[in-house]
């Protein structure tokens, strides 16, 4: 809502001979919730991972707070990813041998927080997301919706400024999906975090402040202001 927090300039990314991104340019504002949509195969997930500093583009650049990600040392990039960014995937990101609470505490433990304090934060976040009743359960025992809310708690526990979510409700039924999405956006907005939300679901996209459409590896031009409707 104020300045540009995160931006991509002419980003190109290929996997072997397949060009997933062919010059993608966009910006995300401070505190904005942006949906990234487009047909399957358009490069949405790849774009998300480039913005989140997980994948490195072959050409172009990604900037966070005005600093180029490719100019950061490996250590600084890791620290950025752990402290300032949170990542929520469609499924399968909870470590099977840890309880829900331990999973949520994991990023803090890797950032050398004291164990008891880390567990307290983890429980507080589980409570905020309505998942405190499964704190001692293992991921295998959780329903899809519960697992996603634990994953969101883990993404938020370090107080990140940007949450990256890749089809967070894709594996869930409509009702659970709505609950999870509302939990994610309420928690993100309460901490003034920006959200970049990859989705192929229009109803999910409608929850965002605006939409970025990716087609064939590039960002589509924005619709011109609609003429007066009849």
């Amino acid at each position, binding site marked *: 809502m104020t300045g540009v927090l995160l931006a991509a300039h002419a980003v190109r990314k290929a996997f072997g001979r397949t060009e997933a991104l062919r010059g993608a340019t966009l910006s995300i504002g401070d505190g904005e919730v942006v949906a990234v949509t487009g047909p399957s195969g358009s490069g949405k997930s790849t774009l998300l*991972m480039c913005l989140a500093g997980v994948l490195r583009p072959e050409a172009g650049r990604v900037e966070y707070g005005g600093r180029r990600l490719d100019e950061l040392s*490996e250590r600084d990039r890791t620290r950025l990813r752990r402290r300032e960014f949170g990542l929520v995937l469609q499924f399968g990101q909870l470590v099977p*041998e840890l309880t829900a609470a331990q999973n949520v505490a994991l990023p803090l433990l890797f950032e050398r927080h004291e164990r008891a304090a880390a567990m307290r934060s983890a429980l507080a976040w589980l409570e905020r997301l309505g998942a405190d009743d499964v704190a001692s359960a293992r*991921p*295998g025992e959780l329903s899809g919706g519960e697992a996603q809310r634990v994953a969101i708690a883990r993404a938020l526990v370090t107080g990140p400024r940007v949450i990256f979510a890749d089809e967070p409700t894709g594996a869930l039924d409509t009702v659970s999906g709505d609950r999870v999405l509302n939990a994610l956006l309420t928690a993100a907005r309460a901490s003034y975090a920006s959200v970049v939300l990859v989705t192929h679901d229009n109803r999910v996209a409608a929850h965002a402040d605006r939409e970025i459409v990716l087609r064939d590896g590039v960002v589509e031009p924005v619709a011109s202001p609609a003429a007066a409707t009849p």
Partner: protein
Amino acid sequence: MIRVDNVTHRQGTVTILRDVSLSLGGAALVVLAGRSGSGKSTLCHLVAGVMRPSAGSVLVADGPAHRVRDWAVVSLLPQRLALAPELSVAENALLPARLRGRAVDPLLLESLGLDAIADRPVHETSLGEQQRTALARALVLGPSVAVLDEPTGHQDDEHVGLLLDALVTAARAGTLVLVATHDQRVIDVADETVRLRSGRIAAD
């Protein structure tokens, strides 16, 4: 080590396993073979204690499987890998050891072709590499039982050899390695193959 007694398991209205009984002892590489829908993945998850059977019992190391909470007794490599995106390849693979303050075999990552990418964020690697990372995590504590659900699905011919070697090595070192798969390459190196068809053990 593993005892499955008259297990029938349902999910909703579908019966996935029908009156399955099985006994496996000691270190070996055992394959649960069958097509998709045969119930092999479900049987794996029951042995790993992820859920309780609708009927019958599953015992691991003489106790109910669902009560085993120790990765050094039973570890699991699920189909969806379950890797933490905030961590690197090495951090994911060695997490169980790190949590217990245990020393790690320095050759583990190298034996699975992961040493060159050890510090990469785990999702910056190929699916094949991610799968091998998840396998390393399942084997790092030298568990009594390692349950692996389709561990070769993303492996090309160049890398599957590393994976097969790791399975055989783990079995020789004392782990009961239970693999659900339809991959003939794994079946070829197995000590024992149990075939499942439509939720039942098929007599060969």
